[in-house]
């Protein structure tokens, strides 16, 4: 599927396929995280298929946009997105978390040189700092001229905003007016031990970012059109970095998982996976024939 030639309807179909692939890879892995990957499927689809300047036809392009996944425990959605984007066969998704697989339990950057996984994640709070590094490098390259340059995108969870390092990075990006950087925060309101506002309240989140010299856009993280428009807007903002606060439903698309924090860190059983896949395959009442 070529970048730019993708309608919102087509992207919605892709996101649905990615959700099914997430379920199928998790049930095979017998461990892993369900809610976060399902909740971010729409953002990943929009970012990797439409927004970012990346393509499997030009792997390793020095000018490619850099995408940093900070909360790498949701990597099943990253892997499913990259496979559907054409970086590797979808069949490989079934090796998730298995011995010898490059699809590690938390995504890393060194096992797959030809796949745009730019950093290694897992321990929360480390991704945004690395995204700053990419953005600063691009700025310096632009200043030097005749050097590759790119936009940097980072994906964060709301839970990892508990980490001090994240706020160190937010403060520094504000100091540098780092317009070369845009982040998507998965505002799904859950973390392992419960709801974010019970564990460690984050609100008023948008005000906090604004106080650190960021532009803030809040969207429905399941509305592909809104995700694309927010990204366009973020790239156009010349003053400072932008955070797109994506309000999402954890477990989105699978009724029995939606909004339930107990699905943060476990995979579906084979029986639960059947129910989940059956629900996803109806796709808002339509049958998606290629999966029948």
């Amino acid at each position, binding site marked *: 599927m070529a970048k730019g030639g993708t309608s919102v309807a087509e992207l919605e179909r892709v996101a649905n396929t990615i959700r099914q692939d997430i379920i199928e890879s998790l049930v095979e892995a017998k461990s892993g995280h369900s809610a976060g990957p399902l909740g971010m499927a729409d953002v990943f689809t929009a970012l990797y298929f439409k927004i970012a300047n990346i393509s499997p036809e030009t792997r390793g392009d020095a000018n490619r946009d*850099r995408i*940093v996944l900070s909360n790498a425990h949701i990597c099943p959605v990253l892997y499913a997105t990259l496979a559907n984007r054409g970086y590797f066969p979808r069949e490989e998704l079934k090796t998730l978390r298995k011995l010898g697989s490059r699809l590690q339990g938390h995504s*890393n*950057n*060194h096992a797959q040189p030809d796949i745009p996984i*730019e*950093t*290694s*994640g*897992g*321990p929360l*709070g*480390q*991704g*945004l*700092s*690395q*995204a*700053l*590094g*990419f*953005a*600063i*490098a*691009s700025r*310096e390259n632009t*200043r*030097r001229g005749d050097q590759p340059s790119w936009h940097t995108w980072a994906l964060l969870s709301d839970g990892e905003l508990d980490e*001090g*390092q994240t706020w*160190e*990075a937010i*403060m*520094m990006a504000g100091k540098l007016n780092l317009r070369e950087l845009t982040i998507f925060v998965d505002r799904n309101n859950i973390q392992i031990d419960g709801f974010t506002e019970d564990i460690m309240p984050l609100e008023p989140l948008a005000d906090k970012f604004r106080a650190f010299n960021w532009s803030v856009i809040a969207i429905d993280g399941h509305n592909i059109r809104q995700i694309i428009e927010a990204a366009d807007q973020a790239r156009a903002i010349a003053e400072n970095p932008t955070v797109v606060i994506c309000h999402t439903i954890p477990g989105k698309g699978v009724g029995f998982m939606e909004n339930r924090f107990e699905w943060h860190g476990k995979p579906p059983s084979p029986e639960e996976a059947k129910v989940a896949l059956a629900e996803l395959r109806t796709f808002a009442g339509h049958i998606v024939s290629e999966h029948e």
Partner: protein
Amino acid sequence: MLNPELHLNPHALLPTVEKVPTRNGYGDGLVELGKENPDIFVLTGDLAESTRAHLFQKAYPERFIECGVAEQNMMGVAAGLAFAGKIPFVSSYAVFVPGRNWDQLRVSVCYGNANVKVAGAHSGISVGPDGATHQALEDIAITRVLPNIVVVVPCDYEETRKCTHALATHVGPAYFRFAREKTPTITTKDTPFQIGKTDVYREGKDVTIAACGPLLHEALLAAEELTKYDIEAEVLNCHTLKPFDEDTLAASVKKTGACVTVEEHQIIGGLHGAVAETLGRREPAPIEAIGMQNTFGESGEPEELLAKYGMKAKDIVAAAKKAIARKS
């Protein structure tokens, strides 16, 4: 006598020996590198002058990044720069970097194999009056244990300058540490330095003294003193703790049959750790350890502290005799 092939400072063991802080070698090395290579970046966490990173800041302000007192973020920014093709040098006190941001060093840098150079200033007990919190005595242990990283402890100004250049050329994570105080000049511009290669600074047959950092000078003084007792000590400059030159150490101890380790660091996990691990596997022999003996430091003048914690030449002499006496 000092190994004539290594072009060491002929005045190294005289009371009048010139003294320069090793951190100055870092600052000067960075400025030289900045001129040669437009991809060199220098980061600091509110410690530009005392790490000597300010010299680079003055010369190349566009490639100097002030991160504020936020070491965890600083390590991550460096990783991102490295993945984007830059060569970042992260400059702070060794107690903070890698002390404060070890997880970032482990995951963002070492697991990702990022080409980041970590410079820990104010290492060792000789930091002095600032006291225990600011005396890095564990940094070698916590870096050496990480896969992919190179760990170097240069002994003087000139070796630190050469090390800065060598690590910029080496591709992959690296950690090196400096002292705060002025320390004796042991090497010259012509002295060879190669990452991963231990050099024999003085040949001997009775005991091996394996040293790193500025205390190498005390080790050389101790070797001179030992000649009064008809003991010929072989002194090794073990500047690279990782990858550790096992062959040179094992060959030396095979000849001498006893060993003393000398470091401004906890004897657990540092040079003593590396030597004991090596000899245990390859050349079992009695080993005595000069260094911090599982305690924190305290405030005091550097020389007072080195004396109190048993890191002077006379302590090394006693340890050498003890190691020799333990030979079976």
